[in-house]
């Protein structure tokens, strides 16, 4: 009996490090997070930061180089470039986040179904993902964007159609590997219904990986949004958007190179920030 009491004392376990400490110990997450927070901050407070309106034209001051009055100069219609870049962050980032919601949910859910149940569900979902993945992504994007008319709608529709594939593939593999673990088998023998096992036990286990994929996938989506804008089938002017700005500035690349370079750098900056965040999150969850 004595020996039993010995074991009943809970192990002295190391206190879970606070979230902040974890973040501080992961440089990629720290830097990526700060970069992304800055970006979000600038986008949210755009009207406060910038004295100009994004579509306010001043034809007396076109194609001006950076100065104290216009921090990044003006474009061919005399609009303040800095104002337009930070307003474009609003447009592009909000589309980026909104367009990921549905694909993320459906992809994770279908992936879990395929991985957990296997058999015909797996075959069916694999068949669909493999077929869709055979088409170049931009081909589908351009076709759908044309079919649905230019604007944000095309991006949303395309992404609902093909965006879930990445998640489904990753989560399917992950779920299938969890499926082989004993605790899923144990839960089944203990009479917990399959749907409950998926939602209450499998989902929390695959979610970290899904979020890491989300971060990298958002970068790809942002590039797609910008590409569509560049090709003139994305967001319609006068709404500021990095892609349209790059293509507008292209004609002046010899005299006013910053018109294209600044929005281009904004895309790269966002991409780096998100990739770092994804990397850092993956690091944290791996270490645990």
């Amino acid at each position, binding site marked *: 009996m004595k020996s039993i009491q010995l074991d009943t004392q*809970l192990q002295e376990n190391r206190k879970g490090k606070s979230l902040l400490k974890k973040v501080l110990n992961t440089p990629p997450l720290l830097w990526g997070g700060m970069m992304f927070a800055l970006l979000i901050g600038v986008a949210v407070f755009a009207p406060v930061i910038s004295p100009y309106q994004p579509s306010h034209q001043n034809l007396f001051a076109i194609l001006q180089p950076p100065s104290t009055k216009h921090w990044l100069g003006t474009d061919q219609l005399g609009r303040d470039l800095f104002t337009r870049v930070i307003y474009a962050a609003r447009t592009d980032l909000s589309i980026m986040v909104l367009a990921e919601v549905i694909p993320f949910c459906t992809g994770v859910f279908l992936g879990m179904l395929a991985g957990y149940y296997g058999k015909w569900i797996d075959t069916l979902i694999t068949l669909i993902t493999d077929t869709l993945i055979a088409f170049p992504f931009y081909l589908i994007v351009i076709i759908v964007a044309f079919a649905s008319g230019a604007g944000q709608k095309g991006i949303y529709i395309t992404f609902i159609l093909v965006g879930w594939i990445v998640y489904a593939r990753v989560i399917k593999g992950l779920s299938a590997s969890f499926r082989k673990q*004993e605790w899923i088998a144990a839960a089944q023998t203990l009479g917990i219904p399959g749907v409950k096992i998926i939602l209450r036990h499998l989902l929390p286990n695959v979610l970290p990986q899904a979020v890491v994929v989300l971060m990298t996938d958002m970068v790809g989506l942002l590039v797609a949004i910008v590409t569509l804008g560049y090709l003139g089938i994305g967001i319609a002017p006068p709404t500021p958007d990095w892609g349209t700005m790059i293509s507008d500035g292209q004609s002046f690349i010899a005299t006013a190179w910053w018109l294209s370079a600044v929005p281009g750098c904004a895309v790269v900056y966002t991409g780096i920030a998100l990739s770092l965040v994804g990397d850092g999150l993956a690091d944290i969850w791996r270490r645990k």
Partner: protein
Amino acid sequence: MMAPILEVEKLSLATRSKKKLVSNVSFTIGRGESMGLVGESGSGKSLTLRSIIGLLPPGIEQVSANIRCSGRCAMIFQDPIGALDPLCPVVGQLAEVVAYNQKVSRKASRKIAFELLDMLGLPASLKQKDRYPHQLSGGQCQRIVIAMALACKPDILLCDEPTTALDVTVQHQILEIITRLQKELGFAMVFVTHNLAIVSSMCSRLCVMKEGQIIERGDTLTLLQNPQNPYTQRLISSVLPVPDFERRPVL
């Protein structure tokens, strides 16, 4: 013997490529009885156990089987930490199993879960603060796993080497608990192990398996003292004697 609660008749398992893993295994267990299933690794004892509860790994099929089970089965696993959801607090998991098996409300299920914690000698501090499996020791996790099995109110408890992954001292505690609970609750038990010492203290009957077949069976003590099959003899003689006890007369 009492009316059998579990009858396994001519159980044969094979892989898809027709490689035989278990052939013609039959046994019966009466209510409240405990039977040991011993044999070397790969002799098919775990597979036999798993096919009773329908947990065959993918790729293995029942070629023929007639399993009659007039009661509820629950299983205890070899690796207790692996048998718990790593991201779900243990009392929460236990309460969930209670809720589904005893059809009670969430609140009531927590109460029953607490009772089970007491029954298994788990620390009372778990009631205030739930813990994750990695925060508990192997022995504590195994207690939770046993509690989850008991929450199903089983008539038959299937034990798949429940102490192999544990420390020797903890092994003893877990076996004590299982014996005590069996006396209190009166479930039948199939105990898979390769530890003959455990079997001799836990089980009244014994089946020895080799290469997917039962090669010898009988009353535990008779079988251990007077093994007929050469394999059983080798199995018994392979148990390392404790040097100090060697000079004393055996039993």
